[in-house]
């Protein structure tokens, strides 16, 4: 009987041993280290946490990450929704959807080459702008670097979010629309009162996934601008990399713990809203 009870666990066992060895145990070690001093390895209380909170680089990275998330996610989600609604009405939608998904397959190194030629101070973008009679600038070495990163993120993730929205749209029964049409509801009314409320569960998932994907823009940022980019695109990953190079494991440990707790809190919070929204 006991064997049968644990039968399912044997299927998990190979995977779980790996997960424990490569993720769980070392993470526990990180939590332990976050309370130890850097040099003497003695218990240091919360001094590491205090140190990162006062660290200007940490605050800059946190600020940039928050600003980045708040700037790009709403735009991405709304744009993807608009595209999804348009695409699912046409038989050619599939072809255009492929075009939007293509950036997912393009490796960041290849993208970085294009970006370097486009956004260089003597690059293509400035060439086009000059033709339009506008003044260009050194895009990657100024505040505009931030917006280029936002654009890269939207460019890369639009197809992903369109697929998610289209899945949500396909899940809405057409009977509801027909009933509403019989009652004389117009296009826009249908969208507001049927489509949007029914997309609510999709909305939460898409938000979470878009948020998690936003951490990957570091790839483009790093490849275009290197270890020390313009301060407007100095992200958490840059900070972790720099600490790693200087062996500041104490700060890394504390920051990793803080970030995982914050992320976990956000995910659980979203899931709660999502559960109450989805009923």
């Amino acid at each position, binding site marked *: 009987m006991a064997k049968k*009870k*644990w039968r399912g*666990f044997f*299927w*998990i066992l190979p*995977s*779980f041993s790996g997960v424990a060895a*490569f*993720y*769980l*145990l070392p993470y526990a*070690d990180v939590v332990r280290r976050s309370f130890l001093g850097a040099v003497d390895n003695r218990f240091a209380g919360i001094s590491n946490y205090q140190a990162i909170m006062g660290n200007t680089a940490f605050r800059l990275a946190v600020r940039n990450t928050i600003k980045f998330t708040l700037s790009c996610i709403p735009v991405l989600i709304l744009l993807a929704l608009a595209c999804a609604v*348009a695409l699912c009405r046409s*038989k050619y939608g599939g072809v*255009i959807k*492929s075009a939007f*998904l*293509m950036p997912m*397959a*393009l*490796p*960041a*190194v*290849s*993208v*970085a*080459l*294009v970006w370097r*030629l486009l956004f260089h101070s*003597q*690059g293509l973008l*400035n*060439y086009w702008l000059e033709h339009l009679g506008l003044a260009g600038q050194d895009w990657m070495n100024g505040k505009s670097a931030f917006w280029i990163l936002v654009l890269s993120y939207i*460019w890369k993730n*639009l197809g992903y979010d369109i*697929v998610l929205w289209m*899945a949500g749209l*396909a899940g809405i029964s*057409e009977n509801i629309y027909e009933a509403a*049409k019989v009652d004389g509801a117009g*296009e826009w009314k249908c969208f507001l009162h049927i489509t949007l409320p029914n997309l609510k569960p999709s909305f939460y*998932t*898409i938000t*979470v996934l878009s948020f998690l994907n936003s*951490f990957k823009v*570091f790839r483009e940022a*790093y*490849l275009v601008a290197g270890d020390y980019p313009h301060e407007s695109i100095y992200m*958490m*990953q840059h900070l*972790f*990399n720099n600490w*790693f190079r200087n062996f500041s494991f104490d700060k*890394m440990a504390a920051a*990793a713990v803080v*970030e*995982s707790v914050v*992320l976990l809190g956000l995910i659980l919070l979203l899931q709660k809203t*999502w559960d109450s929204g*989805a009923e």
Partner: protein
Amino acid sequence: MMEKKLIKKELMEKKGIHAGKLLLWGVLAVLAAIALYPVFFLVSGSVMGEDELGSYLGPVVSGKEGYAEFPLLPAYPTLRHYVEVFLDSPEFFVMFWNSVKITFGVLAGQLLAGTMAAWGFAKYDFPWKKGFFLIYMILMLLPFQVLMLSDYLVLDRLGLTDNLWGIILPGAFSTFPVFIMYRFFVELPDSLLESARLDGAREWQLFCYIGLPIGSSGIIAAMVLGFLEYWSLIEQPLTFLKEKRLFPLSIFLPDITSASQSGMAFAASVITFFPALLVFLGGQDYLEQGIMAGAVKE
């Protein structure tokens, strides 16, 4: 089903929407063109002769006056840059093989451990299953930076820093594919398994002869997503590999300080992209299914 709905809708509102529709398609087409532009750019640059590249991109690559410009298509297409990459740069082959080793090593591990775990979560009950599953879900959601130090500590202890295994093993035990495959296995009706059990099938037979074939689209979906992810992996190799001979293509940023180098850079970028493109074209349906599976709420 979708299409039927659309046709009905279109019949119902045929008047007065032509102009709006045209505008909408115009906007969509422009957006799609922007999405594809980098690909055109790379391919076109990779078959453009050195002189042409030099005259167009000179301002960026070699500090000429004025601005760079770029035509959609080259005037005199050539495959020279590809020949150069293939014949004159042995280090490119090494990187290509490193990428292949990393990607296929990770995928093989996910295929072995991941499918079994997904099957266990989907089709069995055992104590604390919910807790285990929650751990898997949380791990899937955490970005690399949070796990970077833990990753380093374990690799250091195992002596796997500066070793391709140090990239492969943590990837092989990534919990993301487990979650994707779980979504597909869970659809399989339990009654099917019960009747097979009554006929005397063993548990591993259920997995091999029922689970794997029926869940195959989920497995492929996870593999397609995994391929795209690990083929362009950046953070891990950047952190854990110091020796250049271990670098994968995904962190190879070619030098473009002269026209001939930029030609090779274009060709190298296209070659890096090519396997991912094949997987994308061959597996787009699975890719979409995988994206959707990642989103379905537990």
